[in-house]
C-alpha cells in the first residue's frame, strides 16, 4: 500500500522552485504508471518514495509506515526490507559476480534467504548460465534483467522503477514491462514505474501524469 498526501519538495540550489506532487493512493499489489516530460520531478518523486530524499511537506505512507517519522537508521532499514529500486542505468558491485550481487542485496534486506525464490527468479529472467560471471562481462540486456532481479530478489512491498525502458527498442521494452509486472505479481508488491516513454502507457490502467 502506498499513500502520499500534499507532497512537496524543493532543491536548495534551484531558486526555491517547489515541486508539488499529486496525491497517490495505491492499494496493495496494484501497479501505477507515472508519466511526465523531463524536469517535472519524476525521479525526485521516486526518490521521495524510496526515502532517499526527505520531503519538505506532506506525508508518505508505505505499508502503514510514515517515512517522514522514521529516523535515518530506521529509514535505511525500512528501505532495505521493503523497497526494491530499479534504475534507468544499471548499477552493480563490479567486483562481484551476478550471483554474488543478488546474494548481497538479499543479505542487506535482513530477510531470511530464500534459495528457491532466487533460483526461480534467475531462471525466469534467463540468467541461469551467467550466475558466476562478473557483471561487467554481461551484455546490456543481461544487465537490464539483473537490475530487475536486484529490485525484486528480497520480495519488497514496493517496486520502484525509474525509466526502465527508455534505452530499449520496442521489443525489449515490452519484454521488460512484462517481466516487471510478472515479478511484482509473484512478490505481491506494488509496482510504480515513472517514465516519459509513451510506449508503456498502454500496459497500465492506472496513470498519473505530472
Amino acid at each position, binding site marked *: 500500500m502506498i499513500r502520499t498526501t500534499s507532497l512537496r519538495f524543493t532543491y536548495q540550489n534551484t531558486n526555491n522552485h517547489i515541486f508539488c506532487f499529486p496525491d497517490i493512493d495505491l492499494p496493495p499489489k496494484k501497479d501505477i504508471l507515472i508519466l511526465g516530460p523531463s524536469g517535472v520531478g519524476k*525521479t*525526485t518523486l521516486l*526518490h521521495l518514495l*524510496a526515502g*532517499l*530524499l526527505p520531503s519538505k511537506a506532506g506525508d508518505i505512507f508505505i505499508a502503514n509506515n510514515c517515512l517522514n517519522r522514521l529516523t*535515518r*537508521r530506521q529509514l*535505511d*532499514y*525500512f*528501505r*532495505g*526490507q521493503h*523497497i526494491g*529500486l530499479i*534504475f534507468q*542505468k544499471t*548499477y*552493480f*558491485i*563490479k*567486483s*562481484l559476480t551476478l550471483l*554474488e550481487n543478488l546474494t*548481497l*542485496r538479499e543479505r*542487506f*534486506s*535482513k530477510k531470511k534467504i530464500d534459495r528457491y525464490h532466487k533460483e526461480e527468479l534467475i531462471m525466469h529472467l534467463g540468467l541461469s548460465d551467467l550466475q558466476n560471471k562478473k557483471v561487467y562481462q554481461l551484455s546490456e540486456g543481461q544487465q537490464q534483467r539483473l537490475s530487475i532481479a536486484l529490485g525484486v530478489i528480497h520480495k519488497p512491498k514496493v517496486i520502484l522503477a525509474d525509466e526502465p525502458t527508455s534505452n530499449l527498442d520496442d521489443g525489449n521494452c515490452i519484454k521488460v514491462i512484462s517481466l516487471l509486472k510478472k515479478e511484482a505479481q509473484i512478490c505481491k508488491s506494488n509496482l510504480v514505474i515513472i517514465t516519459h516513454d509513451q510506449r508503456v502507457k498502454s500496459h497500465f490502467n492506472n496513470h498519473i501524469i505530472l
Partner: protein
Amino acid sequence: MLYLAYKNLISKPLNTLLSILLLMLSISLATFVLQVRNQLNHHLESNIKPFDMVIGAKGSPLQLVLSSVLHIDNPTGNISLEKAMRIAKNPLVKEMIPVSYGDNYKGIRILGTTHEYLTKYKASLQEGRLYEKPFEVVIGSGVSKKDNLQVGDTFVSSHGLAENGLETHNEKPFIITGILKPTSTIIDHLIITNLESIWEVHEHNDESHHHEEVHKGEHVDEHSNHAVESGEEREITSLLVKFRNPLGALQMSRFINDETTMQAALPKFEIERLMGFLGIGFQTINGIAIAILLVAGLSIFINLIKNVRERKQELALLRTYGANTFQLIKLVFLEALFLSLLGATVGWFLGRISIWFFSIFIEDVYSYHFVFSLPTTKELIILVLVILTTLMAAVLASLSLYKLNVSKTIADA
C-alpha cells in the same frame, strides 16, 4: 561485508599489491633490525656473563674482549702465566681461568683452558668424557654438527686462527673424547682442550722451526704461544677473572693497566661501548623503516581515498540496499584492516626469513646463531601502530561518506 571488502581489494590487484609491498618492506626492515639487536645483545650478554675482567697483553681492550671472551678477533698478544696468576691471587678474585690458543681446525678455534671454563658456561657432556691428557679435546655441539665429528675421531690442527692455514701440526693429532650439549653460547663453536696441549703442540712446532732455521738460516716465529724449555716461563693468551664483588674489577683493572705490562679489560663495559657504536647503525635502519612505513601509510590513504571516489556509485547503491553510513565506513575500515594485517604479517615473516639468511652468514663468519622467535612486545607494538595508522587513513578516507548524497549520486551517473 568481509567478503565484499576482500573482493573489492582483489579487483584492483596492482593498487593493493603496492600498498602491501610498502607495508611489508617497512615491517620486515623494522622487525629485522629489532631481532638482530635483541639476539645480538642476548648472545653477547650470555657469553660475557661468566667473567668480570680479562687480563691480556697490552693493546685494544675491545680486541682483547672480542678475542678472549667472544672468540671473534685476533688476540693482542701473550702474557706470562706466572705474572697473571700472581695478580689473580688477590683476595678480591673469586675465580680465574687461563685461556690460550693459536691453532684451528678448519677455521674452528682450539682453545686451551681448564675444566672450570666449561662449568662457567654450564656446559655438560652429551657423550664421551672430558679431556684429561694433552691432545684430548671436547667439541661443542655446533662443531660436531658442522664437521660431522664423533667421539674417537682424530684431526690435526693448523697453525694460526685462519682457516686453510698452510702450516699443519701433523705429528700431534688431537683426539675427540667428548661432545658437549648445546649451550647457545660460544662454547658450541669451540674445540676445547687443556693448556698443555697448546703448549706442547707449539713446543714441537718450535723444534721444527729450529731445524728449518739451521737449514735455511732464517726463522720467523709467528707463535706467540711458544712452549719453552723447562725453566722458561709459560705463556697464555689471557686470564678470565670473576670477582667477589663488582668493585674488585674497577680497582684491579686500574692497577693492572697502570702498574703492569699487561692490560685489563672489562667485557661488560667494552660490549656496551661496541653496542653503542652499532646502535647508530641500528637507529639509521630504524629511521629508514619508519620513513617507508609513513610512505606505506600515505599510499594506503591515497589508495582508499581513490577507491571511495571511484566507487561512490557502488557505495550509493549499497545505501539504496539499506546499508547505513556506518556500514559503508565499516567496509572501508575492513579493506584498510585487511591491507595492514596482510602487509604486517607477511612483513613479519619476511623479517624472520631475513634473520634466517643473516644467521647462515653470521654463523659462518662469527659462529653466532640467530633463532626463530615469536613476536616480541616491541614488534607487537609496531603491529598495533601500523594497524592504527591504516585505520586512521580509513577514517580520513571515509569522511566523505558522511556527506554522500545518494539521490544525487544515483541520478547524476
